[in-house]
């Protein structure tokens, strides 16, 4: 029983790490531009499939990863440049529709390039499982969890310590004030879309060895990532990470103890409950809105 529980926890934390990375991407874009980027999941999908295609073309793993991150980041930049920036001043509903449109559009492109096939990849360093108190850990699980920890620390340090990071935080607090302090707000917005896309791509690269990727994989990952961001309190990067881990663990326990067929439904029921009971999220603070 405890071994089983431990196994579910390991799976949950692994999957949760991926959700955390996607959720972090949501939080970064939301902070900088008040837009919920519904195409965040598509970044993950593109990162995942493109790394597999590069490897099948004979590109060494490390270069394949770098190339797929570069491509996805470029897509992130163009998302801002060609869809978000021209629609400045759009209402919330309009901005939701735009990013949903981008997500469907990217999925359509992926379908044309890669078809409906499933793509899989060898783990980064072998598939020999390690025993851990009766549960098994795959090396890829360790890769995922360790990379996520490093990335989260990196992103938080970036916001706290670097001039660009601080400038981005300033933009999210008050764009006008940031502009008056000589910060190039448009550049910071562009940067936040790029950063968020590259995090998404990395999440895709990390997860593709333990799951299959196909052109429509983005929707579920995007939804789960968004759920993580909401669960933790939207706009709070650390909250998104925490939300991702909680969601991953709950989902894995639900799949293990209740039914794996309803796995995704369990995740959404939890989210709906959280939305109803505590819409500001676990770490978020409730606030009144100025009219």
């Amino acid at each position, binding site marked *: 029983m405890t071994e089983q529980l431990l196994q579910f926890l390991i799976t949950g934390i692994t999957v949760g790490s991926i959700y955390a990375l996607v959720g972090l991407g949501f939080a970064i874009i939301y902070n900088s531009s008040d837009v919920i980027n519904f195409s965040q999941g598509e970044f993950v999908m593109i990162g995942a499939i493109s790394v597999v295609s590069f490897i099948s073309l004979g590109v060494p793993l490390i270069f394949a990863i770098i190339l797929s991150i570069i491509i996805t980041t470029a897509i992130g930049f163009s998302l801002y440049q060609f*869809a978000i920036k021209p629609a400045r001043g759009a209402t919330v509903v309009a901005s939701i*529709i735009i990013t949903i*449109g981008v997500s469907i559009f990217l999925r359509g492109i992926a379908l044309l390039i890669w078809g409906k096939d499933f793509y899989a990849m060898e783990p980064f360093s072998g598939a020999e499982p390690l025993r851990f108190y009766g549960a098994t850990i795959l090396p890829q699980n360790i890769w995922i969890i360790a990379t996520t920890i490093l990335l989260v620390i990196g992103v938080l340090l970036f916001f706290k310590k670097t001039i660009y990071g601080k400038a981005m935080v300033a933009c999210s607090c008050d764009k006008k004030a940031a502009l008056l302090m000589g910060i190039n707000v448009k550049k910071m917005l562009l940067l936040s879309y790029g950063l968020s896309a590259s995090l998404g791509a990395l999440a895709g690269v990390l997860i593709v060895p333990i799951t299959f990727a196909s052109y429509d994989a983005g929707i579920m990952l995007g*939804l789960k990532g968004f759920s993580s961001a909401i669960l933790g309190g*939207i706009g709070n990067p650390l909250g998104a990470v925490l939300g991702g881990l909680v969601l991953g663990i709950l989902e894995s326990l639900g799949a293990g103890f209740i039914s794996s067929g309803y796995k*995704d*439904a369990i995740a959404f029921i939890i989210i*709906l409950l959280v939305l109803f009971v505590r819409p500001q999220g676990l770490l978020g603070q409730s606030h009144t809105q100025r009219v």
Partner: protein
Amino acid sequence: MSSIKKLSGFYILSLLGILLGVFFADNYFVSVVGVIVGFHIILAVSLNLLMGYSGQISLGHAAFFGLGAYISAIVPDKFNINPWIGILTAMIIVGLLAYIISKPILKLKGHYLAMATLGFGVIVYIFLVQTVSLTGGPDGMGDIATLYIGSYAIDSDVKWYFVVLFFALLVVWLSLNLINSRAGRAMRAVAGSEYAAEMMGVDTSQTKTKVFVISAVFCAGAGGLFAFQQGFLSPDSFSFFFSIELVTMVVLGGMASTYGAIFGAIILTLLPEFLVVFEDYEMLIFGGILIFMMIFMPKGLFVTLADKINSK
């Protein structure tokens, strides 16, 4: 404005629908595509009540349509009752469900509502696939009985055309009347500014709940007809992508315009028929339309064109 003038568009539409059915009954585009256009009109007009007139976004409307279809097909089959009572049951159940979820959902705004309805849509889809004993799961559900009006069987494409036309026009008529009523003005006030509406004494959460429930019930009714018209149901007809298709119809025609929604439904149903390559590029086209419309023509094609013509 007299009520005849107000509804002149509606009368033209009805006449056009009837004439097409009478004179081109054997035409594929009338008897087969026309029925689908009718369903899409009901769905787009219902969604537009919510999206256009009260400024709420739903990314899960396919779920109400799907629940309506499945309940309408399952209930008469299991309890051996008249299919019309099945459809009515479906509308009541979906209405109640929409009411229950709307209470907390509509407290949420913008992103949260989009997410919550999306999540709801995904949950319904998963249940349709998983409850194999009831719905037949991913293989679908066949052998749905024929629908009768009295003792008159609706068993041909043309008969279905007129039945669906009738209900589509009914929904359009109800929608046109609703938005020009006191409740409709309250809805539009909510879309404009919730705070301002509240200041003017509009009960915003009750208004939103009402619209949400009405919109869901219309979709459920359409689903019921759809089940009997198709004779076969599969969860794929009610996926997330279909919800997006409905949103695209409303956005293309123009939010906050009933005729815009009708226009969008007609265009997006006919487009795949004329473009042979459409299927491969379906997502690209829908995505492109959503982005383009929101950036360059947020009022929608129909409304923008109508404004142009009127201002001349």
